[in-house]
């Protein structure tokens, strides 16, 4: 893996390790301060496993006051802090630094209040995304954003990364489903942004904090809105003879005024791989396959499915199947959700990219990816959240072959640059982290980045909170790593990635 430049290590901090451990041991329960290498090892990486670094010390605060006191201590003593939730992030946002205090929020794991009257849940940040839905589903409610790692990822991490999911076209990402947070700034200030009331007075700090990747504050409490579960959900599985037909079908469904709950496309390579892997009954002869899902009341869903069917047929669909039961619908999704492990079978390693593009550019971007695949002589399979333009190409390579790895990294960077070129974005839902940091200048110029850094400095003048993430250190577009999986072994093999 290419070497990654991180902020300069402060050797004076390293030499004061014992003092820092004992000082923080007086601020919080000393049992929650970990410093032995064996204790630190589990924290050396997150979901972006290609990068590893042991932190100086791990602290596990139990109350917001403890978070505040530790941050204030670190701020006064110029010690860097890296916050961490469940550690499932795919862009290296919680990769430790050698001279940092890693603040692991795992003990903030309780749901504090379920408020059906105001249709919201108040929770501590390390409760998992899915646990929120589980807590309210018996009353027929759910929490809408559904990142694929939802069984493991924390809601605080979702806020930090502004996580999306398959259903974000209709229901939005985390930022659109969040009512309030309690947050601690680097100087120890504890404050709340938003609450149970909609919008808030003054500047929208809630919106600024969401997706700030742990650079502006540590989240200690989250209030999310919950929605009434739809009465009925139906999906259609559609095959197309060309990618263009599939792309046109997506555009037309949207233009016709149907907003699906989810709309996914896979190319032929991935359709075949996932079908072989999960026996989902996909049309493997089709050049592109689409799953389109609608939710709502019965008449509403029937009307939309009918419309989608007509549009698909008009766009030369080669096969079309509508789910007759919830089991069948879940079977449609099973293959799609197995996209990552299915690729693991095809090649020793693969890297998952996360670009965002205008829906209408799908065919053009896929053509470019095919061209690049030939150029770099590496196979690629494509999954696409077509509804909201989020593309996940999976590049297959062999990490034991240094040349293959380098080619893969170059290939990945070329794809993301092309996404930006056609009017898209570097990252749709995985975050910038360390992974896409040096590509930021593809999307932003110096002035744009400088404005963002000025905000960072306003809230954290010594740049101690999660430094080295999101913003370029090299200030040039180096091609760096992506989500890298070796031998099919991801950091969390049980978590679906899609």
């Amino acid at each position, binding site marked *: 893996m290419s070497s990654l430049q991180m902020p300069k290590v402060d050797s004076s901090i390293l030499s004061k390790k014992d003092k820092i451990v004992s000082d923080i041991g007086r601020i919080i329960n000393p049992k929650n301060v970990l410093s032995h290498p064996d204790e630190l090892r589990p924290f050396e990486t997150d979901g972006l496993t290609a990068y590893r670094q042991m932190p100086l010390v791990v602290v596990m605060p139990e109350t917001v006051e403890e978070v505040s006191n530790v941050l204030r201590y670190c701020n006064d003593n110029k010690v860097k802090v890296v916050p961490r939730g469940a550690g499932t992030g795919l862009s290296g946002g919680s990769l430790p630094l050698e001279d940092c205090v890693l603040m692991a929020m795992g003990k903030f794991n309780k749901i504090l209040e379920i408020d059906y009257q105001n249709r919201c849940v108040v929770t501590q940040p390390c409760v998992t995304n899915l646990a929120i839905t589980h807590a309210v589903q018996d009353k027929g409610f759910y929490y809408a954003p559904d990142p694929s790692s939802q069984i493991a990822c924390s809601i605080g991490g979702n806020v930090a990364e502004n996580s999306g999911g398959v259903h974000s076209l209709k229901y939005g990402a985390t930022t659109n489903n969040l009512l309030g947070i309690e947050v601690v700034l680097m100087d120890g200030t504890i404050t709340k942004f938003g609450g149970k*009331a909609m919008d808030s007075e*003054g*500047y929208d700090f809630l919106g600024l904090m969401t997706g700030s990747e742990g650079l502006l504050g540590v989240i200690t409490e989250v209030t999310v809105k919950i929605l009434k579960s739809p009465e009925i959900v139906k999906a259609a599985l559609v095959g197309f003879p060309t990618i263009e037909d599939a792309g046109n079908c997506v555009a037309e469904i949207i233009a016709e005024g149907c907003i699906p709950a989810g709309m996914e496309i896979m190319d032929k390579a991935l359709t075949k791989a996932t079908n072989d892997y999960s026996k989902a009954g996909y049309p493997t002869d089709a050049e592109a396959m689409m799953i389109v899902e609608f939710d709502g009341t019965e008449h509403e869903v029937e009307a939309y499915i009918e419309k989608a069917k007509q549009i698909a047929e008009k766009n030369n669909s080669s096969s079309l199947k509508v789910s007759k039961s919830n089991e069948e619908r879940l079977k449609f999704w099973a293959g799609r959700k197995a996209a990552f492990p299915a690729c693991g079978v095809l090649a020793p390693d693969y890297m998952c990219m996360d670009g965002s593009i205008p829906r209408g550019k799908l065919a053009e971007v896929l053509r470019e990816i095919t061209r690049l695949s030939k150029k770099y002589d590496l196979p690629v399979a494509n999954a696409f959240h077509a509804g909201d333009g989020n593309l996940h190409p999976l590049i297959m390579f062999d990490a034991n072959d240094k040349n293959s790895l380098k080619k893969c990294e170059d290939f990945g960077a070329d794809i993301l640059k092309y996404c930006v070129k056609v009017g898209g974005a570097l990252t749709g839902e995985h975050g910038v982290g360390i992974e896409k940091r040096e590509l930021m200048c593809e999307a932003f110029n110096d002035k744009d980045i400088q404005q963002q850094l000025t905000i960072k400095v306003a809230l954290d003048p010594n740049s101690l909170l999660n430094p080295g993430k999101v*913003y370029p250190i090299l200030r040039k577009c180096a091609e760096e790593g992506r989500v890298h999986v070796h031998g099919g072994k991801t950091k969390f093999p049980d978590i679906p990635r899609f």
Partner: protein
Amino acid sequence: MEEKQNFQTSLDSNQNIFKPSTREEIVEIVKNCYKKSIPLEISGLQSKNKIGRNFQAEKTLDLSNYKGIIDYKPEELYIKVKAGTPISEIEEALKKNNQQLAFEPNDFGYLFSGESNSGSIGGVVACNFAGSRRFKVGSVRDHLLGFQGVNGKGETIKSGGTVVKNVTGYDLCKILSGSFGTLTVLTEISIKVLPKPETSKTLIIKNPHVKKALDYLGQSLSSSTDPSGGVFYPDYFGKNFILNDLTHDGGLTGIRIEGPMNSVDQRINRLSKELDLIDNEFSVLDSVQTEIFWNKTKNLEVFKNSKSNLIRIVVPISETLQVIQKLKKDDLNYFIDWGGSLIWMAFDHLNSKILAEIKEITKNHQGYYTLIKIEDDFKASADIFTIDPIKYKISEKIKKSFDPKRIFNPGKMYTGI
């Protein structure tokens, strides 16, 4: 570049109002003001300029000439426009493709001048006030996909883009929404557009009691019938609605259902059953009447030509009843929007004692208020927006990071910001 040379931006002249038509001109004006520390009032189409504190600015940057649609891609669900573009022009363009701004921008024209003026897109973003669909689709900030603007040093900055999914860098779209022009002059705005529902109908329940209305609204919003609007008008406002199928003129609760035709009928039926309504207790407005009813609501037409002060109070729905009971005086008119969370309250007389009381009550009930319309005598000394000391301190820092010399709308939101 030629345009730039011809444009009169010299601040030595007596010109006090600048009406740029290009971004280069805006940059030039801001740069000059930054250099000379000249405060600048940023103005659009004058529909909401009265909202906010009084402040003194030597010059005005009037964006009404900086208008036009740059790029509209219906199938990509976005429209990119210059900041001074009138909302009416945008809505006209969207209508041709059966699309809309789903957050239903309020038209404050009726309130301030007695006639329609929905203002410019820049003003709508700067104020972040959303209409009745707020609880379902989010506020203006949730629909702003990207922007380009000029910060207080005259530097052109951008954030976001035209795609819905984008987590690249800090989400500056959010911090600029509702910043009342105090951080950045918006130049280009990319905003999400959505298909218009095939049809919409409104269940109108005859009912003068606020408590009962809040029960209806709470129950509807928690049902799978998926309403997109929920209001309550007390008795004295009921007469403002003269519609074919409205069978009474007293207090009413209105619940809007949108979607494909047969689904809307099915959901309206179901909702009336879920709410245990008997036949003579409710009526249903068809799509034409529904449009009139909700336009009147989002445009605050019941306060048209009213001389009263108007306050916008937002609280969690569980608190609404208590807030109203505590604030209700004889001289007070109000109606409730956002399915129970937004109270528009008119006060004939307002003074600092009453305002302090309102502030205390909204705060104790986990909400906040904004003074929308206020008598001139009192305006200079009143807190238009509320803020706590910690957030004030953070706001000061954020203001400085965008506008270090405080030249944009200084004091419009808070003293010193």
